[in-house]
Each structure stands twice: as C-alpha cells, then as structure tokens.
C-alpha cells in the first residue's frame, strides 16, 4: 500500500516545490526590474550629493551598477541560492543579519494582532449573523466599518496621545523602555520571549506595555474585514437545508450556529484570516513608523527610498516565502476542516 502511495506523495511535494521556486523567481525578477525603474540613484544615495565624481563612480562600481542588469540579477540569484543575500548598501550589514532582527519584530506584532482580530472579528461575525438586521448586527457593522475606514497612522497617533502621553496606561513608541532595551540579550528577536528569558524583573511587563497599543491598532484595522466576511459566510450557510434539519432535531440556536453553521463556513473564514495575516506579515509600515517599531515594513520602505537593491530583494523574497507557506498551510487547514474538499 505504501509503495503505491509514495510516488503520488513525491509528485505532489515535487509539484509544490516547483511552484514555490517558480513563484519566488518570478517575484524576484519582477522586483528587480521594478527596483531598477525606481528614480532613486542608489550610488548617489550612498555617497551623497557633495561627493566627488570619483567617489560616485567608485560607489557605482562597488554596487555593480555598471553591469547589464541581467548579469546583476544572475549574480544575485547565484548568491541567494547559497544563502548569501548580499550586503545592504544603506546599512552596510549583510541583509540576512538585518532580516534576522527586523522580521521577528514584524512576526511578533503580526501574530498577536492577528490573534486579536481573528477572535474578535469572528465573534463579531457570529453576533452579527445570529440576528441579521438586529441592534447588535447594526452596531457591529458600524464598529467594524469604522475600524477599517480610519487611517491607521491617525488611529496610532491618537491612541499614543491618549493612552501613553495622557493616561500613562501603556508604553510609548519602541519595543522596550531604554532601561531594558539594550541590557537584555536579544536571542530570539521576539521581545516577549527575550524579556521573559532575561529574568529582568520588569522587562516582561514592559514588553507587554509596549505591545498593547500597536497590536490593538493593527487588530482594529483588520477585524472589520474579518467580521464582515464571517457574517456573510455564516448567512450564506444558514439558508441551507441541514440547518432546518438541525433545528428539527431540537438543537437550540446556539448549537445550530456553533455546531452546524460555523464548521461549514470555517473554510471561507480561514481563507479570509490567512489573507489578512499575509498583509500583516508584509509589515504594517505605517504602524511601524508611528510606533518606532523596527519591523520588516519600515526596513523595506527605507530600502525602497534608498534604492538599496539587496535589501529590497531580500525582504521581498522573505515576504514571498511567507506568503507561499501561508497559502499552503491555509489549503491544508481548509482541507482538514472541510472533508468535501478532499
């Protein structure tokens, strides 16, 4: 039985790897071409406007800008395959090291924000679908619409002003107060875990205090979409025959909604959640700017403004990999939740 099974499995894994490679190389090629289109002159950004033409020419040579872009791209890919993502021209550090510090910051923020917006979003969706057109439904609709209609940088600044500057309930911009920021060892890059492991008394609480606002602001921005999509998915399912039969079996409204309707809508909801998680993983550059969060979003944006090609490519590659992995996981989850798709 196993022998017959293995080749098909290998074929599927091979297929998945092939699409991964094709998607990533297409992504890199597109990013490379578009970055070349960018009006920013990387050499000029490096040496500044006052530098002599000799220094400017030398910078162009160092960055390999003289060569045709096909050669540059081929050189980049051959190095990337061996894990060398090149040196970021704007920070002088290997891009891989930069990504090791910036990606965990975004990962932590995105995951926590995703957790909050998923729980609250789906709950709002359920409440809204329970009595469509009811008071709860209307209030939730306005709330979730407001969430995704208010510019996030505006919401961020307002929340900082209120909860940090005035009420002192939360920490301010940045991931930790300076007392801890540079004393604790930044092993994993995830500030919560590092703070916990550091044993410093107030460090963990301080990390949480700094995380609250950006997480809630990001969640508020995302949950509107989740709530609305969940409500629609639930409403579509609630018109089906099996709901009538479930009620005919004597099931109460709560059991019908949670036991019968939700499992059927789970597939759609999971897809919506994965889409918004992907968006968060890409780095919420506006939130990271306002909260001085050294995340992937800001790193990519500053690299873009500096036309720092290795950093742009490295970040896009990382985002591409996250995206493909996330899509594959979502497919598996949906298959596990919805046997019809087997």
């Amino acid at each position, binding site marked *: 039985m196993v022998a017959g099974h293995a080749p098909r499995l290998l074929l599927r894994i091979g297929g998945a790897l092939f699409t991964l490679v094709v998607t990533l190389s297409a992504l890199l090629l597109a990013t490379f071409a578009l970055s070349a289109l960018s009006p920013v002159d990387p050499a000029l950004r490096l040496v500044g406007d006052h530098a002599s033409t000799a220094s400017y020419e030398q910078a162009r040579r160092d960055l390999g800008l003289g060569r045709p872009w096909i050669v540059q791209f081929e050189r980049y890919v051959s190095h990337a395959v061996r894990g060398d993502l090149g040196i970021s021209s704007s920070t002088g550090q290997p891009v891989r090291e930069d990504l090791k510090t910036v990606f965990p910051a975004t990962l932590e923020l995105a995951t926590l924000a995703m957790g909050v917006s998923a729980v609250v979003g789906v709950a709002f969706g359920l409440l809204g679908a329970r009595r469509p057109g009811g008071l709860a439904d209307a209030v939730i609709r306005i709330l979730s619409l407001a969430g995704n209609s208010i510019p996030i940088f505006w919401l961020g600044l307002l929340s900082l002003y209120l909860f940090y500057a005035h009420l002192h309930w939360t920490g301010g911009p940045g991931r930790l107060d300076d007392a801890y920021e540079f004393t604790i060892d930044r092993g994993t890059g995830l500030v919560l875990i590092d703070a916990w492991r550091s044993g410093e008394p107030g460090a963990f609480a301080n990390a949480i205090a700094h995380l609250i606002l950006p997480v809630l602001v990001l969640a508020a921005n995302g949950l509107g979409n989740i709530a609305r999509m969940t409500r629609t998915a639930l409403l579509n399912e609630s018109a089906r025959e099996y709901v009538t*039969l479930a009620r*005919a*079996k004597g099931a109460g409204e709560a*059991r019908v909604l949670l036991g*019968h309707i939700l*499992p059927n809508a789970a597939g759609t909801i999971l897809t919506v959640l994965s889409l918004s998680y992907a968006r968060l993983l890409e780095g919420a550059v506006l939130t990271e700017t306002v909260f001085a969060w050294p995340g992937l979003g800001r790193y990519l944006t500053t690299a873009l403004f500096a036309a720092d090609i290795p950093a742009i490519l490295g970040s896009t590659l990382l985002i591409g990999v996250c995206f493909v992995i996330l899509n594959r996981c979502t497919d598996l989850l949906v298959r596990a939740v919805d*046997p*019809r798709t087997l």
Partner: protein
Amino acid sequence: MTQRTLLSVRNLSIRLSRPAGERVIVDRLSFAVGAERVALVGESGSGKSLTARGLLGLLRSPLSVSAERLEFEGRDLRAATPSQWAALRGSGIALILQDPRHALNPVLRIGRQIDEVLRIHQRLSSGERRDRTAEMMLAVGLRDPLRIARAFPHELSGGMGQRVMLAMMLVNGPRLLVADEPTSSLDAALRDQVLDLMVSLVEQRRMGLLLISHDLQQVAQYCERVLVMYRGRLVDERRAVDLAASDHPYTKTLWSCRPSGRTYGTQLPVLVREADERAETLS
C-alpha cells in the same frame, strides 16, 4: 381506528410578508392526525411543504404562521417558547426531509449527527448512546453501523442517506413523524423500499405519520387517509380506499393522471380551472 389524537389543527394559515404587501400561502387548514398514517397531497407550490415545516415551528420571517388551534398531545403550541419547541422537536415530533445530500450536515460524520439527537434530549453515557445509535441504524436496515457512523454524508447513496435520517429522527422515540416528500429524490426501486421501512417502523412503534407527497398513487398504497391540497386550501379529505370514487373534480383529475401502462403515450386530462379562478378573484 384512531385511539387518541396526536396532532389537532384548526384554521392554520401561513402568510408571506413582502415589501409590496402580504400574501396568504396557506389558508385556514384544519385537520387532525392520530396514531395513523395520513397523507397530505398536492401539486408543488400548493403549500404542503410549508405546512409541514409550520407544524414544527421551523418557519422564519418573512413567513409567519397563525392558527386557532395547534395542539400536539393536548399541549397548545401556538405560544410555545423557542426552548419548548426545541424540547418537542426530535423527541415528540420528528421531520424527514427530501434530499439527504443537502439535509445532512456535510462536514460532520454520520455517527455524530445521530448521537447529537440523543445528547440533546437524554442524559446517557457515551457507551449507552453508541449502543442506542447502532441499534437504531440496524433497525433502519443499515448493515454496517460502525463504518457508516464514521462516514461523511457525501460518501453515502441517496437511499442510505434517507435511512440515516430515519434513524436520526426515530432514535428518541417520537410519537409523530412528519415526512416531507421523503422519497422524491430517490429512484423508483428505492422509493418503495424506504416507504415500506418507514411504514413498518411507524406501525411497530404505534406512531402517527404525516406523509407529504405529490404522488397520489404512492400515497394511496401506503396511507390510510388522504388530505388533498390545492392552492393553499384543503379541498378534499377521504379514506385512501375511496380515492378512486372521489367526486371532487381536482382529486379525480389527479387520480386519472397516474402514470401506468394504460395512460402511456395518451394526452393527460386537463382540469377545467376557470370556475375556480373566477371564484378565487371574487372572494
């Protein structure tokens, strides 16, 4: 023949509220069902299926149900609260729907869907529930209960799906079974098999059966009494054996449309409706 009345209904009406105004779909139905097999027959769109669901309080806005009397085993259902309805459904009155592929929850295993009815209505240990479920599945003719219990609805055939629904609905020992066109999604051979099964179970457990169908001949064969509905109103009520001799024009036309060797290839008789149409518009 009827020892005691299970369900008694007087002037039951169902209305549909539209932005444009209200429309009466079912108009002042009155009938009773005891521990007997009663059929509710009519063309599609005559409101028979809505009546069935109305009896179990399953209709939601924009549909609304009103009645002078709606009693089951003496208990007045008109003002029943949602929890009272829930307690009644699946334990007092049971409902069988038309197509198992849509009526069974596609993402839950069969065993769990049957087990759920027991969990809702009775306090049993999981072991007892497993036995009761297996026993019920055998009673409805499902040979391999363990395998089927682990299967998903889309893995079953139409016939097996109906048997599962029967098992699910009867495991709690209800007194009245409402079957809304239980066999129209099955092919001819299976249809009689399922109806035979249903009738034997109903008789065995001395239950009442309200069989909703559009197939007069099938109804005549399996039921004792027949109610004929036309455009939302009860136009005829008679014992199944007297159907052939019915004098009501609509019942006569319906009866003569029975597909059989004799009527094969010939033009089916057409009901002269103008009389009714005119009557309709006047009232």
